[in-house]
């Protein structure tokens, strides 16, 4: 078979412009841009900003809980803090940063020059960004006529009837509702864009079966977003009808149903967790093979497992509701569906293990974060199995054990893989390498802080400490564990600050990266770093899953084996 190879050459004649642009021109350029790379970077920058804000909220929470009967913040402030922390981290950190990487990488990886709908892309970003600002504006305008302002304090699930007018006067809950609604509009827009781009914009030769796994996973994740964001948006509209137009869907004082809201929220909320973790899998699928110097093991199984997770994740939501009294039949069904997810997830872990097996592992900072992800995601999956055992969940549900479990998924899984992705693709995005020395410091500090915080956090849950309490009794034996958890949070903070410093410093002083610093195999490494606005001077064509491997090893190209 003839081997088609991509054309790495860049025919860019416009690099040596005469003078630096004015700041106003730069600003105008970023605000009006429809370039998928700039929108991707704006998504990432915006998410990092909110990461710092919501991380600071977590720090305040941990200071308050470090010792019993603490009065560092009032109960009202504490309840707002955990509501804002959760809502921000899910909707305005995790979603935008993952969409940011997707936006940046997908066209580059499939050899396209932009997303399918560039202006929809810009619209989705700005509407999501506005949602985040609206959420935080509640601090100023949230109480409406009742006072100066207050953030929502209903928890990030906003369970009915706590959100009813009777229990949540003022406008803080409305700001929350509208912010989530807008974020949902942005998500649907971007998901639509990703699906269309992947279906229609692949370069010649890139069959679906040759797509990088990252692109496959983003396709599945975007399709899931259609199914899951819709009930969330519907629920927000129903809540607004309840609050302003006198419907009583969730108003239990007038015969409404509190459980109905739970179903609407979790049919969004649980698939959402997979929407967030799938991109982390996507990064792992690209980064682990390159630093193990081996092709991904079991590509078709990986695709099948992803699609499997996508489908099964839509049928597990009520495992968040094992304690609402659904009855033995429903509980048993959701035990089974939730445990089933362990099978495709296990396949993924085994395939990563097999990818590493027999390789030559390069311990870059990026790979170290990816290895941390593998271990931590394994543990998070196993505590997930414990929680899927409904009777065990009757004890552990809504306790600090659950808080530890999902932070293990989100921090130990998603955030570790995100850091890995930053160290891996930052050179492509900026043309400069991140400092490996600072990176190692970042890794070890964050690893120690993470384990101190989130390993220990399981214990107060086992000892009966419920979540969302602003203080606790001194005689319960929870203090020592909470103190350790809080001290771990401080160490993580130092790690994250080092990372931010590394991002800024390396932009100006980092080593020049070149087009392909990691000896990579996918198309984004065939163009310059950072890529020109048109990505590829000539649209590449590919003959296998690893076009750059074929280019570098013409004697043994991949398509002999696929």
């Amino acid at each position, binding site marked *: 078979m003839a081997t088609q190879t991509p054309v790495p050459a860049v025919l860019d004649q416009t690099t040596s412009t005469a003078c630096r642009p004015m700041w106003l021109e730069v600003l105008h350029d970023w605000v009006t841009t429809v370039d998928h790379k700039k929108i991707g970077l704006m998504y990432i920058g915006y998410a990092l900003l909110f990461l710092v804000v919501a991380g600071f909220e977590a720090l305040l929470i941990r200071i308050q809980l470090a010792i019993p009967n603490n009065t560092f913040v009032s109960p009202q402030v504490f309840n707002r803090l955990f509501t804002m922390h959760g809502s921000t981290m899910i909707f305005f950190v995790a979603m935008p940063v993952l969409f940011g990487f997707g936006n940046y990488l997908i066209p580059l990886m499939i050899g396209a020059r932009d997303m399918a709908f560039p202006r929809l892309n810009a619209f989705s970003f700005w509407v999501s960004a506005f949602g985040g600002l609206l959420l935080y504006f509640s601090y100023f305008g949230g109480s409406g006529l009742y006072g100066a302002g207050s953030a929502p304090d209903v928890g990030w699930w906003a369970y009915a009837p706590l959100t009813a007018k009777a229990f949540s006067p003022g406008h803080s809950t409305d700001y929350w509702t509208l912010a989530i609604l807008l974020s949902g509009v942005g998500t649907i827009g971007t998901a639509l864009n990703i699906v269309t781009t992947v279906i229609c914009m692949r370069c010649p030769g890139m069959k679906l079966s040759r797509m990088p796994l990252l692109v496959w996973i983003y396709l599945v994740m975007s399709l899931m977003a259609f199914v899951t964001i819709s009930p969330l948006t519907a629920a927000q509209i129903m809540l607004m009808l309840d609050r302003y137009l006198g419907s009583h869907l969730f108003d239990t004082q007038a015969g409404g149903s509190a459980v109905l809201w739970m179903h609407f929220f979790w049919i969004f909320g649980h698939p959402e967790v997979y929407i967030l973790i799938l991109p982390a899998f996507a990064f792992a699928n690209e980064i682990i093979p390159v630093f193990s*110097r081996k092709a991904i093991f079991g590509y078709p199984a990986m695709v099948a497992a992803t699609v499997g997770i996508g489908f099964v994740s839509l049928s597990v939501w009520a495992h968040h509701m094992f304690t609402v009294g659904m009855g033995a039949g429903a509980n*048993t069904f959701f035990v089974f569906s939730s445990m089933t997810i362990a099978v495709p997830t296990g396949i993924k872990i085994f395939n990563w293990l097999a990818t*590493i097996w027999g390789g030559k592992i390069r311990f870059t900072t990026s790979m170290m974060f990816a290895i941390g992800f593998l271990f931590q995601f394994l543990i998070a999956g196993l505590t997930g199995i*414990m929680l899927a055992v409904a*009777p065990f969940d009757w004890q552990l549900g809504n306790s600090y054990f659950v808080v530890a479990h999902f932070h293990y998924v989100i921090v130990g899984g998603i955030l570790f893989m995100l850091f890995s992705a930053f160290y891996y693709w930052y050179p492509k995005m900026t043309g400069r390498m991140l400092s490996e020395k600072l990176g190692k410091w970042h890794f070890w500090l964050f690893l120690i802080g993470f384990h101190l915080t989130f390993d220990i956090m399981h214990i107060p849950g086992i*000892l*009966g400490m419920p979540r*969302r309490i602003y203080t606790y009794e001194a005689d319960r034996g929870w203090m020592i564990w909470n103190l350790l958890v809080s001290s771990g949070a401080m160490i993580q903070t130092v790690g994250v600050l080092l990372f931010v410093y590394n991002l800024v410093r390396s932009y100006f002083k980092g080593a020049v990266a070149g087009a392909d610093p990691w000896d990579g195999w996918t198309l984004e490494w065939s163009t310059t770093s950072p890529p020109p606005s048109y990505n590829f001077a000539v649209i590449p064509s590919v003959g296998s899953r690893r076009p750059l491997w074929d280019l570098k090893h013409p004697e043994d190209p991949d398509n002999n084996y696929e």
Partner: protein
Amino acid sequence: MAIGIHDFALPNVVHGKTSIFSPDATPAHSIFSLSMLVLAITLSIFLVVGGLLLYAIIRYRERLSDPDAAYEPAQIYGSNQIELSWTVIPILIVVMLFLATARVIYSTEHAPKPPSALDVTVIGHQFWWEFRYPKLGITTANELHILVSDPRHPTPTYLTMSSADTNHSFWVPRLAGKMDVIPNRINVMWVDPTTAGLYLGQCAQYCGTQHAKMLLRVYADTPAEFVTWVAHQRQPAAQDSSVAEGRTVFEHNACISCHTIAGTVATGRFGPNLTHVASRSTIASGSAPNTAANIRTFVDNPAHFKPGALMPPMHLNDHDLAAVTAYLTTLK
């Protein structure tokens, strides 16, 4: 807040006052046994997979001293047999775990209710618990008295639960898993403590500002203790002429809009029933010990113990405050 080394000791973890690993009733016991099985299985999986990962990371690290360091390792693209094996084995584990889980779900949720069972109605309020004994004509708050259950003659307590406002959750870890307390919905759970004594718990579903101080105390009484307690609780409130002034203050203020004291004009239902408030060991749903000084502080300014509690500060002068405190302390 001295931290001793014993705080880290395993027995401390296992035998905590609210530890799920220190069960003392059938539902908590069956969860405990199941959880040990689950922990054993997950720990084995962790050791096997984690061990393989660790081995691979150490064994296959890049060694620059290799003679063929410049070459890429052999490229292996996959194997259907291997994929099949690590699909089938997890499926078998999942099926086993599922069957063990389903058994405990059905044995707990579909346990036959013996005729000797005690019935209690639990009503969650922001931010306190109301307990009614429909067959005994008792209403009390925050401190639940139930019977110890002898396995030979089981006397489990069935809790029929609903909420007056937002969602709550009834969680006493040493007795049973939690059950949500939801408005417009009736949930049932049962407990059968095997030893007499005090079991602690608290609300486990975020219900508003003072969710943290919605504590639970469950007293498992011996039959003799329980009979005495019931007889006492069925009495109308104590009439002590030495505190008649305090009673007058109570009855001429807004107190009676929210609180009931049986045998008086106070018939309010928004707050806890105070007929025998002095017989309880804590006030403000477990936030503070039941002492005269604490009652006085709480009546004067409920936010002192529970900022965000729905009881307003009563703005009584010192004289009235002392009188009403004296009255409340006589309501044994």
